[in-house]
């Protein structure tokens, strides 16, 4: 290696380190904000954001990294919620056990739906997931245990591990935050693992990935099931927070809403879904309580259109692009 090359290599290494350090500073700052947030904003509202953020992160794992647009993710959110609610109110299990069972139910459903759908691509994949989710919706509408249209109510928040009283909003918040961070880390590890690299390769060019000897269907299935499980985890946690589970979560509008969140935040970015979920939930919340209450749907539609036309990379994606081109 010539001296010049060595210096260059060292410089690159140095800037990489610096970038890395910047990243960790950013993470630490975000964590700090998350920790003090419930003292600055209404905790129940923050928990709602975190639940939807986890849901959107799970969805983004599939769309952003495997290139699969699912139009049926509401099914997993609802499944997690209903089963958690059911075991908590019927068998009086502690919330963490309830959440585990709900997540497991969503994982099972995800495996089933995944096997049926991952062999298709693009629009067909979107449509078959939509169809399957419609059947799930029908099941929950008909099944007795869900309470049908009225929903499942009065689910006790209970005591975490039988010890910590979750009826306190602050304890509940930190628990939800922990669940979110867990889900977020799982996704972060997945994306940066060799598995995640193969997923991206499949997204870019499935035929090439196949010719390199990867069993692409197996990879996509694992991604699908993981995404379903995390969506279920979000639904389960949400049920504990709000003490109810309802058909709203199973409706196809919910599948559309998670697309909106991910799109607004930035498809295929780590923080995009978090930012998108926070944005959409806040906008909906603020609008529905304002004088513009009856225009909520119109404004959400406008956001969709503007997003697609002008900033397709989403809030986080556009910021990243801006940073890249200005602060190399």
């Amino acid at each position: 290696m010539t001296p010049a090359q060595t210096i260059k290599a060292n410089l690159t290494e140095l800037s990489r380190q610096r970038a890395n350090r910047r990243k960790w500073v950013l993470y630490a700052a975000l964590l700090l904000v998350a920790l003090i947030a419930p003292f600055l904003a209404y905790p129940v509202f923050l928990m709602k954001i975190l639940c939807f953020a986890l849901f959107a992160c799970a969805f983004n794992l599939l769309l952003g990294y495997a290139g699969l647009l699912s139009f049926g993710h509401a099914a997993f959110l609802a499944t997690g919620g209903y089963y958690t609610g059911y075991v908590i109110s019927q068998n009086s299990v502690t919330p963490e056990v309830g959440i585990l069972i709900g997540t497991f139910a969503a994982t099972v459903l995800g495996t089933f739906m995944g096997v049926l759908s991952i062999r298709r691509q693009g629009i067909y994949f979107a449509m078959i997931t939509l169809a399957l989710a419609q059947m799930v919706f029908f099941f929950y509408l008909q099944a007795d245990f869900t309470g049908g249209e009225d929903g499942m109510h009065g689910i006790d928040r209970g005591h975490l591990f039988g010890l910590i009283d979750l009826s306190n909003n602050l304890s509940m918040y930190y628990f939800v935050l922990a669940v979110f961070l867990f889900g977020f880390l799982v996704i972060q590890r997945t994306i940066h693992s060799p598995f995640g690299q193969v997923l991206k390769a499949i997204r870019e060019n499935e035929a090439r990935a196949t010719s390199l000897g990867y069993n692409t269907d197996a990879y996509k299935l694992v991604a699908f099931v993981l995404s379903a499980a995390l969506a279920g985890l979000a639904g389960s946690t949400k049920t504990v927070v709000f003490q109810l589970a309802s058909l709203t979560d199973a409706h196809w509008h919910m599948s559309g809403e998670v697309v909106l969140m991910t799109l607004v935040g930035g498809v295929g970015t780590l923080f995009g879904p978090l930012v998108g979920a926070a944005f959409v939930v806040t906008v909906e919340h603020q609008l529905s309580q304002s004088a513009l209450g009856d225009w909520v749907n119109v404004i959400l539609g406008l956001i969709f259109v503007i997003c697609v036309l002008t900033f397709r990379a989403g809030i986080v994606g556009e910021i990243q692009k801006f940073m890249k081109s200005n602060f190399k």
Partner: protein
Amino acid sequence: MTMIFGVPAAAFYGQLLLGLINGAFYALLSLGLAIIFGLLKIINFAHGAQYMLGAFAAWLLLNMLGINYWTALFLAPLIVGATGVLVERFLLRRIAHIDHIYGLLLTFGLALIIQGVFTNWFGVSGNRYAVPEALRGGMNLGFMFLPYYRAWVVVIALAVCFGVWFMIEKTKLGGYLRAGTENPALMQAFGINVPLLVTLTYGFGVALAAFAGVLAAPIYSVAPGMGANLLIVVFAVVVIGGMGSIMGAILTGLAMGIIEGLTKVYYPEASNTVIFLVMIFVLLFRPSGLFGKEA
């Protein structure tokens, strides 16, 4: 009395006929979707809203300007089709070069906007549009009472469906369209104005939706939400028929109408779900749909 699967034969025939009539609506709507998908490769999520616009256009024409049903049958699709042309020209064209998923998302947003605006303007309860004078009443077929208007719907809808099929498959204009679907770049090289073709195609697909809306106005409540639930059923029809296949959309529309109609007799609770069940089975065994070409 002869029985078919536990239902009196007369009632069975009646349900078949009603299923066919509903199927004609599905055929018209899925035809529009299929044409749009064929050339633009996008799923038009605003199709339900545009169907609703057609019904509202007819209602407004009658109540504001006193324009009757027969004129509205031409005028409403023309007006709504024109809005479709604008949507393609100023919105969809700007994203034509990127992943077609964005087209789906854009039209999804449009559907929210259109439906929301009409809800605020006209409320959700809906409005009545009277059946045109000439088509009031009905005939007794022996096994059922058939309103003349329903008979008219099935006749005109099928005529339009097959007319459009003929135009696409057998005429020169249709040839351009098919060629544009196969290879737009080559078409451009041959001096065909492909962007114009795309714009007009979208407008035409939208006009078909609006036409179905006008047909629906006298038999359903003209309400902002009338297209929203119909839409995903029609999606399923298009997927089952094979995306972009014209004849597939028409025949599947009719077939699904009948299947849904029979479900309403044997297991009515599932009548909104049965089409999705069919769709899953079809996609498992014929991934490109019943009439689609293998990808």
